[in-house]
């Protein structure tokens, strides 16, 4: 029997059940055997006493016939068919018998007539054909002319009844013991495995962002595992943080240099510049733009890839949206936009705050660039997901442009500042969270509605 590898609990329980069953069956067999031997020994000894009593009570009376000096004390010898019998025969003829035999005789096997005085055991049929256990010896009384054959027999049925009663009680007790032991095993396994349940609960909390590390003290067998897991989490955080920092430093350093190059190129490209200079300037500007796109693209990809492996952290959506709206109101202040946010309190995104800020920030920024006068952010919860939609009252986009809007580096309108990378980044981040980004015409304002579908935290 191979227990399923899947369940530790089942393995332990099956093991316990096998041992309990085996131990109790062996105990039962041994006890039954011991009891049977003991009872049989007692039975034989008692019957021997009866035989001795009978032998010592025999005498030959005046007429030369065998007779009892006194009656045997056991009352069962006097009650008819009581199960306890005696008989005395001489030369194969029954001369005396117990009252319990009534008008029957005990038929001894043919060869049961040794005359050496040894006690012999027999199994014989009783007056009602029931099996009897008999002891027999021959006896030569000093007064008597011939040897007497003395038999004492008792019904084996009584023994069998005693065995049956004992075995029944034994079986019941052992069964009860088996049940009790099994229950104990279940309790033991359940209690013993409980720390694994705690571990799972805590891991779920860490995954969902309610906790950063395993904190609950664990049994000494599990604690090293917890310590290792915590160290692993620390290490992962550290690696991600270091990677982000270094990538960030690289990007920031490069961008300042790009800014210098771009400014120089723009200066070269002024209307009064020479034709050659203007061409060089155009080349420089386009190269600067390409380099910036590369930096942004790979930074965004690195960011999306890094956040994928990390346990999620809860982010309050309302908080994040209001921070971004503050930014939009400043950055797009000259456009005099009415930015409306309808986000219910307590709505939580199952992920990193900076990632949500990147996704929503880009969508909001686009909306603010295209809007005529109003931008709206709305968030709702739909079972285990949250849907954040950003709507503007601009001219909207045709369905053909929707597709293009999502390919990396595409700019929808070269005259509006921005590289167009925003949407590619949003898409990468959304994908890394298993979410969805959908564009549709806004039913209210006729502009564009971008809807983000992301995992929510309960």
């Amino acid at each position: 029997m191979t227990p399923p590898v899947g369940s530790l609990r089942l393995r332990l329980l099956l093991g316990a059940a096998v041992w309990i069953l085996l131990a109790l069956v062996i105990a039962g067999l041994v006890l039954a055997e011991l009891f049977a031997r003991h009872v049989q020994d007692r039975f034989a000894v008692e019957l021997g006493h009866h035989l001795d009593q009978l032998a010592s009570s025999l005498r030959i009376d005046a007429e030369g016939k065998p007779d009892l000096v006194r009656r045997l004390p056991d009352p069962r010898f006097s009650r008819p068919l009581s199960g306890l019998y005696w008989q005395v025969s001489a030369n194969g003829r029954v001369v005396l018998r117990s009252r319990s035999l009534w008008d029957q005789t005990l038929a001894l096997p043919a060869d049961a007539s040794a005359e050496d005085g040894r006690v012999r055991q027999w199994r014989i049929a009783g007056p009602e054909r029931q099996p009897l256990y008999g002891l027999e010896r021959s006896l030569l009384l000093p007064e008597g002319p011939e040897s007497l054959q003395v038999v004492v027999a008792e019904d084996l049925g009584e023994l069998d009844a005693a065995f049956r009663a004992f075995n029944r009680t034994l079986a019941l007790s052992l069964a009860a013991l088996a049940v009790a032991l099994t229950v104990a095993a279940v309790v033991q396994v359940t209690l013993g495995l409980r720390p694994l349940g705690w571990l799972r609960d805590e891991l779920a909390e860490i995954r969902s962002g309610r906790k950063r590390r395993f904190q609950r003290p664990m049994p000494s067998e599990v604690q090293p595992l917890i310590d290792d897991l915590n160290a692993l989490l620390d290490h992962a955080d550290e690696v991600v943080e270091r990677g982000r920092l270094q990538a960030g430093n690289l990007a920031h350093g490069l961008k300042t240099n790009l800014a210098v190059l771009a400014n120089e190129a723009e200066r070269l490209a002024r209307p009064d510049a020479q034709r050659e200079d203007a061409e060089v300037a155009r080349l420089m500007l386009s190269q600067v733009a390409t380099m910036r796109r590369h930096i942004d693209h790979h930074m965004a990809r690195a960011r999306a890839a890094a956040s994928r492996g990390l346990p999620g952290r809860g982010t309050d959506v309302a908080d994040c949206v209001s921070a971004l709206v503050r930014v939009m109101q400043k950055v797009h202040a000259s456009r005099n936009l009415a930015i409306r946010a309808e986000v219910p309190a307590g709505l939580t995104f199952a992920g990193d705050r900076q990632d949500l800020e990147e996704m929503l920030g880009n969508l909001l920024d686009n909306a603010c660039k295209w809007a005529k006068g109003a931008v709206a952010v709305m968030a709702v919860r739909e079972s285990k997901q949250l849907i954040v939609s950003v709507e503007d009252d601009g001219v909207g986009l045709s369905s053909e442009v929707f597709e293009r809007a999502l390919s990396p580096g595409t700019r929808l309108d070269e005259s509006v500042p921005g590289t167009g990378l925003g949407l590619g980044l949003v898409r990468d981040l959304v994908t890394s969270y298993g979410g969805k980004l959908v564009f549709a015409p806004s039913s209210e304002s006729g502009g564009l509605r971008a809807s983000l579908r992301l995992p929510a935290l309960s």
Partner: protein
Amino acid sequence: MRLLVVEDDPILLRQLRERLGTEGYAVDAAIDGTEAAFLGSNEPYDAIVLDLGLPRRDGLSVLRSWREEGLSIPVLILTARDHWHDKVLGIDAGADDYLAKPFHMEELLARLRALIRRARGHASSELRAGPVVLDTRTGTVTTDGQPLDLTGYEFRVLSYLMHHAGEVVSRTELTEHVYAQDFDRDSNTIEVFIGRLRKKLGGDLIKTVRGLGYRLEIPPDDAP
């Protein structure tokens, strides 16, 4: 209009100073956070361009300490940190605008103009006082539609007076906003610029308020 530009990259700083100077701004420069914090707190700038990754003291902490002091000068953050998270931090620290590197110089100029205008409560990019119109976008001045030829300092004086139209502006204030810090200032030259401006503009648009300074009159029909 006098600006403080905080930038630790020397070449970018030179480019910014040159271009902003051409646009008619008086420009002071700081190359680290400590210097920036000191200048911003002690000199009357009209706007500050602030980088974030600075030596000695981070730009965000400098900005926060200005706002804690109650300094309300408009601040534009010009930085390579272009994540939305950084923008939230910048705006919440008290910035009025945020521009990520690399940037178009024209966009920086436009945003600065808008910032200064908004700080004075002007909605339009054109400032108007009677027949005189100053277009902050192009940096041109016209009277009755005729373009006016002004020198750099004349433009700065007129621009400051028009941004503060109707208010009394002292000679010291004008000096502080027209010259950069390291310039050898002489408040008498302000009188020279005022005199030339009066001649070019005609009329009595610029009034002298005895003992206090100057005031640009707003004719009643186009008061804001």
